[in-house]
């Protein structure tokens, strides 16, 4: 680590002297750089990087045709469709209703508002398997909601059920992304719009929504990414039916389970996992770029 903080430019060159003048000077009086960085890197390596590398290493032992046939089996294709389709649908539902919920919490006063505000985080606090079994009990054909659903709409053991579970899981992401931006929105912009004769609806669409857009998109993307990997809340309500409601994590778990009884090797599960990891990393990258932009927007106030 060559540029240890605020270490005075030892070679005395103008460029590095200028550099250290630009940067806030952090004196070297603060100890523990080597210890904490070393510990951080070691722990990160052992706990996170080695396992993730193991997945890619295993995948690299497959030939291209092996890899391709694993990731494009009809069952896998069906699972991609369910996983991506339901995550997308759930994230869209959350974008719409999460925006409304955030708006109501920030802008209106009503009885029970602070309870509602606290409740938003329930999907983070409630173990996913508990959410899953609760949704299962609700939407069973004889459950509270399963009983009263109109005949044409089936939620239990259908992709709609998967979407319901992913909506539950994704809701806080949208609300908690939009909320702070909405709260920090300067009032004078709205007042200016109103004083210039804009109707309220016009102000909402032309002035407020454009400000919320990046946060809404970030919340949507977070909810979508979380939905792709989600497992515990989905499996009970979906009944894990192959070619119907099976999601990608279902396939991976089942492959590992049949590996345990010696029925197959882990090549197929690993190949599918690599596809998912790559998708997740691309999403993560896009989110980081978006959040950087978001940061600029919110500081502007």
């Amino acid at each position, binding site marked *: 680590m060559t540029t*240890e903080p*605020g270490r005075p430019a030892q070679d005395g060159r103008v460029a590095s002297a200028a550099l250290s003048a630009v940067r806030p000077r952090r*004196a070297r*009086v*603060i100890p*523990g750089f080597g210890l*904490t*960085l070393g*510990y951080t890197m070691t*722990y*990160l390596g052992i*706990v*996170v990087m*080695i*396992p993730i590398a*193991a*997945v890619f290493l295993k995948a690299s032992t497959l030939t291209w045709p092996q890899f391709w046939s694993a990731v494009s089996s009809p069952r896998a294709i069906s699972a991609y469709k369910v996983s991506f389709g339901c995550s997308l649908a759930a994230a869209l539902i959350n974008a719409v*209703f999460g925006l*409304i*919920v955030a708006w*109501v*919490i920030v*802008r*209106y006063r*009503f009885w029970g508002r602070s309870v*509602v505000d606290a409740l*938003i*985080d*329930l999907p983070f606090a*409630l173990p*996913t*398997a*508990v959410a899953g*079994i609760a*949704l299962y*009990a*609700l939407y069973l054909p004889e459950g*509270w909601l399963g009983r009263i659903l109109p005949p044409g709409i089936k939620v239990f053991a259908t992709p709609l059920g998967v979407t319901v579970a992913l909506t*539950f899981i994704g809701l806080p992401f949208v609300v*908690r992304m939009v909320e*702070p931006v909405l709260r920090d929105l300067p009032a004078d912009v709205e*007042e200016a719009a*109103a*004083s210039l004769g804009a*109707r*309220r609806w016009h102000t909402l669409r032309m002035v407020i929504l454009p400000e919320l857009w990046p946060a809404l998109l970030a919340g949507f993307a977070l909810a979508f990414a979380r939905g792709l*990997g989600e497992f*515990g809340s989905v499996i*009970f309500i979906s009944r894990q039916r192959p070619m119907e409601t099976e999601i990608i*994590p279902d396939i*991976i*778990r089942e492959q*590992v*389970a049949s*590996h345990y009884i010696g029925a197959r090797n882990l090549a197929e599960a690993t190949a599918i996992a690599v596809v*998912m990891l790559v998708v997740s990393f691309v*999403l*993560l990258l896009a989110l*980081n770029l978006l959040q950087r932009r978001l*940061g600029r927007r919110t500081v502007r106030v």
Partner: protein
Amino acid sequence: MSAPGPIRRATPGTTEPAVARYALIAIALLFLALFLVLPLVVIFYEALAKGFKAYLEVLRSPELGTAVRTTLICVGIAVPLNVVFGLAAAWCITKFRFPGRSVLVTLIELPFSVSPVIAGLALVLIFGAEGWGGSWFVDHAPVIFSMPGMVLATVFITFPFVARELIPLMEAQGTEEEQAARVLGAGGWQTFFRVTLPNVKWALLYGVLLCTARALGEFGAVAVVAGGQVGQATLPLYVEQLYHERTNPQPALAAASLLAFTGIITLLAKTWLGRERGKVEKLTPDGDPARAP
């Protein structure tokens, strides 16, 4: 419900008509009731549907006792490990400048974007029968199907929680106070315990809370590693086992109600901690980093 009104001044043109306000509040409350409140209520209702005796029978079973013990061991190991890591990572990232710093921050958040099931698969790839040591681990130091695997899975999943609460706060706090302490003659550890730790107390507790909640409830990664072995189950896995074994969902929901209870406590503690935190922490203008585990 009392009359809803805007928080800000009610200048005409800067708020919605009353009808729209009521409609939006109604939509929001209905949506939350349907998706959040109803699932929470149904757990306790169905858990007690067969009477209090049937409920207690599930809670008293030795299998549930074992599952609770396994869960507590996983939490008891994963949370302290990730607290130490979180403090170390936040220290080197926020008190110093070095190349690759922002990459490191991104890498720490990586476990959030890995599906828990894939995390479990990764451990099987290392320690399983096809693993790195051939079948050495399976024969000599079993990780899969046993406690070490479940602990490792939990550690992976809860890895970023403490660090991500501390980093934005310590970044905003800067190094002036630590420098002052050092100049006045405090040692390194003394500076850490007397200056830094009190400054980040609430954020640390907040991270510990989120980390614990997630460790208690972790399902996908642990499920893959535990492999459905009888007697090798955390509480969430035991809920699933009950659901598969019995035709009647009551026992599974009774076991789930214990976890739901911890969820409610987490929510209350989170609200309280958030409030305490807000009182003392002066964050940057854009502060309040979105907390989305």
